[in-house]
């Protein structure tokens, strides 16, 4: 029997974040979202959804983003968002 796969905390957060973006924002659970794919300039997430994403992140991971942080420069990829979350935890 294979040893159970233990995801590191980062990977677990990454998966949840990706899952949320795919199902709630892109509305396509099979979408092959890349971690360095531009979310805002790539047209996957708009300004309204960004606020929604921040609410999800706060509720799920307890990392609070202040409104001025919600910009394309700061939140444009899964990797960027993830490192911002980690910096806050």
């Amino acid at each position: 029997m294979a040893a159970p796969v233990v995801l590191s905390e980062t990977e677990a957060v990454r998966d949840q974040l990706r899952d949320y973006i795919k199902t709630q924002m892109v509305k396509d659970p099979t979408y092959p979202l890349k971690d360095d794919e531009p979310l805002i300039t790539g047209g996957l997430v708009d300004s309204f959804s960004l606020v929604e994403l921040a609410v999800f992140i706060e509720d799920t991971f307890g990392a609070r983003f202040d409104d001025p942080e919600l910009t394309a420069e700061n939140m444009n990829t899964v990797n960027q968002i993830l490192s911002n979350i980690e910096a806050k935890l």
Partner: protein
Amino acid sequence: MPTLPITLNRRPATLIEQARWLYRERAGSTAVVLVEHDGERRLTYGAFFEGAARFAGALAACGVQPGDLVVLVLQHGEMALAGFWGALLLGAVPSIFPFLSDKLDRARYFDSVRQLVAHSGVRLVIASPDLESALRERLAGIEPPVTVLNVDEVIGTHNGVSVQDYLNRHPAEADATAFLQHSSGSTGLQKGVMLSHRAVLNHVAAYSAAIRLAPDDVVASWLPLYHDMGLIAGFIMPILQGIPLVLMSPFHWVRDPKILLWAIHEHRATLCWLPNFAYNFLATRVRPAAIHGLDLSSLRAVINCSEPVYAESHRAFLEQYAYYGLRESALATCYAMAENTFAVTQSAPDAPPPLDVVDRRALMEDRLAVPVDDGLKPIVPTVTLVSCGAPIPNCQIQVVDEQRHALPERHIGEIALRSDSMLSGYYRRPDATAEVMADGWYYTGDMGYLAGGELYITGRKKDLIIVGGKNVYPQDIENLLNDIPGLHPGRAVAFGVFNETLGTEDIAIVAETDTDDLDARADIMREIRARVAQSTDVTARYVHLVEAKWLIKTSSGKVARRANRERFIEAVLNRLPEQR
């Protein structure tokens, strides 16, 4: 008791004449409070018109003459307000262009400015400092040449301009065009709605009466100024009527929606206009901890306008904010368009708008709005429509069939209107003007019915999509996709589907491709989304690839938007996993 300066019985001839009165009578009163990232700034009418006169001087120094078109490519804020009025004081014709956002592709954005400038013969563009050089480069070579003026150059000017000097001139008559409103964000179809001083002032008089505007009202607004609701309700009307305006930028508000609520609280604002999605957005996106102690009891009307109105959105908003003092009687609705300056109808200012519960089948199939008795409601499928109110003073409405013959009450047809605040025409587009105007009537392209003197909107004749208050034409989106490798040219369709959670439409795109390769398909989807965002500033929520011949065509070989929308909802949307 002081009265409003502009009423149905008393209107100045031009906006400049009203500015002269305001500067003389209200110099020390608050014109605008700007809510900015680092706090608030208050401008009195004196300071406001002095700022405008500085712009008038700078524009005159660039050779701008009465009647010349001046386009503003500026962030929302003091400079946009002053630049707009500076052009007005000179008798020039200002128009506000949507500002570059995070999403938009710079090159495409500048192309759209160039198209407008070249097509309309714009004389001067007022630009923010960060866009000046790029704009100058992109607008080179247009004949006649256009001047690009950096706002910083204006702020630094002390050209000895006196406000009085400008206020005492008479550069425009009542029937001259005061300003242009661009009727859509679409580049290819951009139409400049020409509004005369007379039309604008008639409108301010009529709409003020419809909402019973009073001297102690205070308006709070985050709305964009390039759109009729923001420009007229959220800027021109309060300024002309001496009503304090608390103004924030839409970019700021969307990131931090609570600033509107606190601005209402702080300034005891009484009036606020919002598109339907904002009711949902405010109901769900503001953390309760961020509004502890908030008091919204000063609001006497929150007016839902510029998107289809949903009873459910009102309910969610009221449920969230009744605790903070929001009164149900403050819920209000309005049906508006730039072609009538702004409002066409308005619900009564002291009661929520009536709801009409009608038979769904009769509405869809017979184009009739048949009320359903309470007893039958549990068994007959119904649709609940929210009234947009009755026509404002000096505005007539009729609902017409396809031959433009008037229909009786409760029959669904195209809404036509006639008023004293209509457009003079589309700027340099007599063809487009002739399409929609005949015998003094303007044909709106919106569908609806009248019942008991109230107007109900049921849909649009055109396939226009409204996303978060912004108008998007599906053909503009489809045209962007023609040359994407892997897609069949002309075999993509865009349409709107209603999103109940957001209270607005989502954009859906269905496109045919032959490739089965997953990576290639992903790249195509990426390219579609990126192009839509970078060119139109809206996000395509659904991008769905299908095999060749999936899309339904009309008998003339065109892709049928409505039929494909139905097919997409049935085959794709309804089969998505349950959403949260």
